[in-house]
């Protein structure tokens, strides 16, 4: 049979298929990012960007203790939020994957239901629960207990808020990984003498590490750049790197410095992603198709 359809060189076919996606990424991701990089080497004067190339912005961000402190705070916050999300998301994802039956998909989507509203709304809602006149502390006081100060405008409140915001990513990532996981391997491990915890560490965890790592990246990146959550829940001492960065584009109008901060934020996130990537041994993922 002769193929009468139009035929192109495979390389042209590839280019035609790749073009729309590549154009999208270029226009909406690469270009803005490039402009930020360019701005970061300029300077701002009286709310105006002046194209004079210099490294002053980076010198400030990387040597001024204020900025470094906020960078460190954001790093610590992102790490803590990631760890808490892993610990909390694993049992949830595991339960849904193993016992969800035909409602599995619905249950997973439900964990993401808060995404149907905006971030500001979600964080404000959380304020109603955690704040000084929030549900938790009001309830405590009604029954004659002391209110929990740590919940009111603090880094703990911020962390709770961030976990709440981004944990659906973690749950979905781990859940999708568990969908491909053969739970029978756990029975093999148990018959071979592994107690449940040992079986988890020997089999379940390593075989689902990629999914977990993806979840960690998905939670780390937005947490590291968080602005809204610390502003609403963190209180006066809860500002993070993102808040200071935001500030440069708003009140102070130092766009060039803000751009440099943005680049630093981007590079640190990238470094973190690469670091996580290093933990993945392609031979030991079990992702080699029919690996058994």
């Amino acid at each position, binding site marked *: 049979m002769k193929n009468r359809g139009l035929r192109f060189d495979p390389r042209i076919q590839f280019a035609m298929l790749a073009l729309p996606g590549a154009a999208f990424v270029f226009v909406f991701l690469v270009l803005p990012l490039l402009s930020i990089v360019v701005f970061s080497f300029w300077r701002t004067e009286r709310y105006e960007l002046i194209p004079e190339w210099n490294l002053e912005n980076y010198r400030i961000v990387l040597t001024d203790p204020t900025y470094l402190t906020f960078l460190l705070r954001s790093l610590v916050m992102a790490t803590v939020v990631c760890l808490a999300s892993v610990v909390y998301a694993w049992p949830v994802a595991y339960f849904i994957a193993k016992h969800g039956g035909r409602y599995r998909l619905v249950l997973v989507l439900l964990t993401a239901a808060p995404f149907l509203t905006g971030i500001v709304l979600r964080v404000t809602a959380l304020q109603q629960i955690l704040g000084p006149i929030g549900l938790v502390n009001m309830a405590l006081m009604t029954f004659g207990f002391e209110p929990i100060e740590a919940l009111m405008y603090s880094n703990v409140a911020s962390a709770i808020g961030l976990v709440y915001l981004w944990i659906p990513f973690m749950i979905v990532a781990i859940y999708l990984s568990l969908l491909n996981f053969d739970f*029978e391997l756990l029975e093999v491990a*148990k*018959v*071979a003498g*592994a107690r449940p915890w040992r079986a988890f560490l*020997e089999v379940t965890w390593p075989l689902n590490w990629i999914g977990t790592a993806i979840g960690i990246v998905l939670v780390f990146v937005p947490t590291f750049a968080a602005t809204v959550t610390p502003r609403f829940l963190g209180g006066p001492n809860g500002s993070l790197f993102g808040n200071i960065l935001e500030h440069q584009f708003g009140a102070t109008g130092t766009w060039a410095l803000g751009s440099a901060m943005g680049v630093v934020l981007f590079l640190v996130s990238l470094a973190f992603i690469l670091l996580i990537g290093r933990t993945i041994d392609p031979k030991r993922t079990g992702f*080699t198709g029919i690996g*058994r």
Partner: protein
Amino acid sequence: MTPVLDLQAVEKRFGAVTALSEVDLTIDRGEFFALLGPSGSGKTTMLRVIAGLERPDRGRVLVEGREVTALPPYLRNIGMVFQDFLLFPHKTVGENIVFPLRMQRRSRAEQQEQLAWVSRLVRLQGLEERYPHQLSGGQKQRVALARGLVSRPTLLLLDEPLANLDRELRREMEVEIRRYQRELGIPFVYVTHNQEEALTIADRMAVMYRGRIEQVGDKLDLYMRPETRFVAGFLGHPNRFSARVLEIADGRMLLDWNGVRLRQERRFETRAGETVELFLKSERIRLCRRPDEAAALPNRVPGRLQDAIFKGVFADCFVTLNNGAELVVAATPDAAGIPRESPVTLAWDIADAHAFPVEQEGGGS
């Protein structure tokens, strides 16, 4: 002597389904035992109960005289080989094999020693550094066997271990597995739905059906002297037909099979006028070209040869009898040379066919 395994009145239900009911079974030291049954007969559930992966609703499980009914699988030291191999994909062959030893906190030196021993036994030397996805099906199966055997368990359970291998490899592995069993002296409990495999590999076997053990004993006994209608109809893929009882005398029955008189042993209570079902294995039937060749045998039925399929060791002959029935006969291969439509006589002895009352609880297939 205490048996290695002793199941006492074990019962297991899954919702409304009874997977095992009133199962009693003992397995002795060093024996190769096969559990045979169609799918859904409860044999895998039984294996899982023995391994501790399922807890029976009733009854007791004893291993070497010690009750383990409530003991989790990781405290039983029972080896198990699964149908889909289930190797750990993120561990090398060597790591897979020593896994049970690591769980038992054996020293590294001992792990290496046992690994060397078991790799030699299952002929896997040189593959220890590979990952499971780099192995062929047969090699994977050997790794699974090595992992099951490495800690020298009290008992090795094998759940359809050869079902995913092709025919050639299956033959080879059957012989291999028998060799491991003889060399180690560990009792093997081998689950399969393939009767040829069970008959080849095991010494003793049980046939399961609908969650019950229909018959247990020496494999030859089960094959030659089935005690239930199911076993009679299952092992050896026999011919089956019904006949009416005419007379009963001296432990024998005279039967009417659509106008043909048959003589048959009577091994159960029955009365004249009742219908019985007969199971007759094709290799028990003699195919005679001249009627006088069959004179010594009490049951003789004339018919015509429809077709003969040459199979090497024997030939499957399809014979339409004068009473309208059709029987399959496993004859010597030269029967393939008999012209079609030739008149032949089929003959068999009174004990060759197995008769059972038509209505028996749990029968049929």
